[in-house]
């Protein structure tokens, strides 16, 4: 108390003291009024807001005045208010009572301290508040933090480092000590990040701005890429009252960099990595190293249900056993077949229920993935000096656990890109008549047997002309092709390896990162990614994912005598054609279909199946985005649900099979990997024409020939 006022004379201090107590008692009265108002009209948000403001003012004044007991209690009351405001229920009598008790306690403390006595104990009331806020003894947030800390470097960070090195930038490890007297270190870190952001790119900073340890930390460590020298950074990063010491170390690419002190390293079993060990393409390498969460939390009732069903299976089995015994005893029973059928259908029902039940157990709400994003968005947007609000819809949507484990990284990639390149800075947004605060919306929902996950932003959209230009510059496309490319196709250029989606690539920032890696990650989940963008309005990424990885709806067909299946989600149409409908262009079969020329894949050749060709055949039109290819097949057997079994390495080697399944009659069916076939078709084309620019649009070339 004395410490903060030593600069004042006695009279000055007396005056300040008088002001403090007068005002504090006023606030107590106002608080009592507002709490009673809240009691009468529990839905009154304004009452709650006023209460919150009064408490906050009282907290600030008390702490400044040195009356920390009141300050501490007020701080807990603020938590209590947040919990009331954040809850689904309005303030009830229990919370009103508690609030009034708090005010009484504060009043007592004030009276006590004014008359120079000890104001009493606040432990009891704080315990009551704690109990009210979290009746469960398990603190939730800690688990979340561990999850977020994750691997030593995220894919995105790795790509940023690679990019910086390629661009000839310096990489520094910067350690900044905060001024010992600056409060809210999180904000201090924000200011430093903003300052640095104008000088280069922050690859990461520790600790997390939002983590609780930030307020106790005395320094932050950053990995930073910039073209500036150490001295320049040291000079420009200094902020009075925020930074006290800035220590910069060169971090040349050859030295392994350990993100020191991260428990994450241990958890994930990863060793410190050096820059050079990182692959060119993010997810493919990392995919192998992804530590999946192998335990599954299951509702006890679901397990009970399984137990019941297992019991029913035993009944079914004994039904069969009884028939078998009767037959063995030589008793000629008339209804043996009827009884067997009955037992069978009984077991069939049970097995179906078990299958459904187990599938349900594997379903996990996507909130498990989504919940890491609010924090990430906050951190990242502040680093970039942007204001971004994250809206989440459909977090209760359930996905197969297999997908949940893998979807986080590609999603965070997309979100990071949105913040980096989509959302404009507040000034720019203001000047274009937008709200300063950008919005990123994350949505998950079911649609026709698929799970759709959307990430949309209201940023500046993708500059399609810029993208085309860059694709031409980098030799992905010829100028002619670029001109002919429709908007819908051109936008898919962002999925090309090494193409930036920002409009300017400068030395320090704005490198489009790894959307190709996102694409392959989504495809490895048997999903499809699409992108839409309106210049000036925003961009939307749409991920279409299968409900489960274990069971798919597939179309069965054969080629020669061999049975195949393909996920029905990949098939956009099936057409019946005659051999003469196919035309050969440049030594390759194509089909004119609905005024479009579609490349044809001959699975018969691909899989080296003998046998003549029928004249009448079917063609499956596979579609991803606006791209189409045709797959020639012989006979079609309709659709069926298949349980996917993994293939041995030997079979899997061709890379065109997603797995196999066994049909009811015991026949084995191979399941084709649609995205892989797509890729193959495109590669074939490249090889045949030795033209680079066919990567995107297998059909464009045929149009002009």
């Amino acid at each position: 108390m004395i410490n903060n006022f030593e600069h004042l004379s006695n009279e000055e201090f007396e005056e300040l003291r008088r002001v403090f107590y007068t005002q504090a008692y006023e606030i107590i009265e106002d608080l009592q009024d507002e709490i009673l108002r809240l009691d009468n009209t529990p839905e009154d948000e304004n009452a709650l807001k006023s209460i919150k403001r009064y408490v906050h003012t009282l907290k600030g004044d008390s702490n400044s005045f040195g009356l920390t007991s009141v300050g501490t209690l007020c701080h807990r009351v603020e938590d209590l208010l947040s919990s009331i405001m954040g809850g689904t229920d309005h303030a009830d009598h229990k919370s009103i009572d508690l609030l009034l008790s708090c005010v009484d306690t504060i009043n007592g403390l004030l009276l006590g301290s004014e008359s120079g006595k000890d104001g009493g104990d606040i432990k009891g009331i704080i315990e009551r508040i704690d109990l009210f806020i979290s009746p469960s003894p398990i603190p939730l947030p800690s688990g979340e933090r561990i999850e977020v800390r994750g691997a030593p470097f995220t894919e995105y960070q790795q790509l940023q480092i690679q990019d910086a090195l390629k661009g000839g930038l310096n990489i520094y490890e910067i350690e900044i000590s905060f001024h010992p007297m600056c409060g809210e270190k999180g904000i201090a870190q924000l200011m430093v990040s903003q300052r640095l952001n104008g000088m280069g790119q922050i690859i990461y900073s520790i600790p997390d701005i939002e983590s609780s340890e930030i307020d106790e930390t005395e320094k932050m460590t950053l990995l930073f890429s910039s073209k500036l020298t150490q001295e320049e950074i040291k000079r420009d990063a200094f902020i009075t009252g925020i930074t006290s010491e800035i220590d910069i170390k060169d971090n040349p690419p050859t030295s392994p960099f350990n993100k020191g002190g991260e428990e994450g390293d241990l958890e994930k079993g990863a060793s410190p990595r050096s820059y050079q060990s990182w692959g060119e393409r993010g997810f493919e390498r990392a995919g192998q190293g992804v530590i999946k969460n192998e335990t599954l939390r299951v509702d006890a009732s679901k397990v009970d249900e399984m137990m019941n069903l297992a019991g029913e299976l035993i009944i079914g089995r004994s039904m069969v056993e009884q028939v078998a015994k009767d037959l063995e005893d030589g008793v000629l029973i008339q209804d043996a077949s009827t009884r067997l059928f009955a037992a069978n259908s009984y077991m069939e029902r049970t097995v179906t229920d078990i299958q459904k039940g187990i599938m349900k157990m594997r379903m996990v709400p996507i909130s498990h993935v989504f919940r890491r994003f609010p924090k990430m968005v906050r951190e990242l947007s502040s680093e970039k000096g942007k204001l971004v609000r994250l809206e989440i819809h459909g977090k209760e949507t359930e996905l197969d656990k297999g997908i949940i484990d893998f979807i986080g990284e590609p999603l965070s990639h997309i979100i990071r890109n949105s913040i980096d390149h989509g959302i404009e800075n507040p000034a720019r947004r203001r000047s274009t008549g937008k709200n300063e605060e950008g919005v990123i919306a994350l949505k998950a929902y079911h649609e026709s047997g698929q799970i759709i996950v959307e990430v949309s932003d209201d940023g500046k959209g993708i500059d399609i002309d810029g993208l085309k230009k860059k694709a031409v510059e980098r030799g992905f496309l010829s100028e002619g092709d670029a001109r002919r490319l429709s908007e819908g196709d051109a936008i898919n250029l962002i999925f090309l390896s090494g193409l930036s989606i920002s409009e300017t690539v400068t030395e320090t920032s704005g490198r489009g990162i790894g959307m190709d890696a996102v694409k392959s990650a989504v495809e490895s989940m048997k999903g499809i990614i699409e992108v839409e963008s309106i210049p000036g309005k925003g961009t939307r990424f749409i991920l279409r994912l299968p409900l489960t990885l274990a069971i798919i709806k597939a179309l069965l067909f054969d080629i020669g005598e061999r049975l195949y299946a393909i996920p029905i989600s990949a098939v956009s149409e099936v057409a019946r054609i005659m051999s003469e409908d196919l035309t050969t262009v440049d030594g390759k079969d194509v089909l004119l279909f609905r005024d479009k020329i579609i490349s044809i894949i001959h699975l018969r050749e691909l899989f080296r199946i003998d046998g003549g060709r029928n004249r009448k055949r079917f063609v499956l039109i596979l579609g991803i985005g606006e791209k189409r290819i045709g797959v020639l097949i012989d006979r079609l057997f309709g659709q069926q649900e298949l349980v996917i079994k993994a293939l041995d390495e030997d079979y899997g080697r061709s890379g065109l099979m997603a797995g196999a399944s066994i049909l009811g009659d015991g026949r084995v069916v191979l399941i084709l990997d649609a995205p892989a076939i797509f890729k193959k078709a495109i590669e074939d084309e490249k090889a045949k024409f030795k033209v680079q620019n066919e990567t995107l649009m297998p059909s464009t070339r045929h149009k002009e020939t």
Partner: protein
Amino acid sequence: MGQYNDLSGKGFKCLIADDSEFARKNIAKIVSGIGGNVIGEARNGMEAVELYFKLAPDIMLLDITMPELDGVETLRRIIEKDSNAKVIIVSSIGHKEMVWKAICLGAKHYITKPYNPSYAGMVIKSVFKEENGGQE
């Protein structure tokens, strides 16, 4: 009072916006201690915006929680018209989110209550000096 007589930031005009009289008085002492002149005090956000444009202060000390307009909204209205406004957020611990927003919007610095007087003085001075051709 020693170091508070340092007049290197001499004569700057300062506007204080805080709904607590105690808080206003408290920081006013610091401002005058480093040679600034408190030219106005606002008790809420509306008043703060009005006084800012009426008095054109060199520095504004802005509280976050105020009636009518909160600090963030007040700042927004000021920055909209004067993007070079030198605004320092003065706020109690626990309003990180709002301070965060304010910094993103263009507040130059922040001070958390309770503050050490010489620290607060140093921060205010540094923001004022930057305006006078200090490096940025």
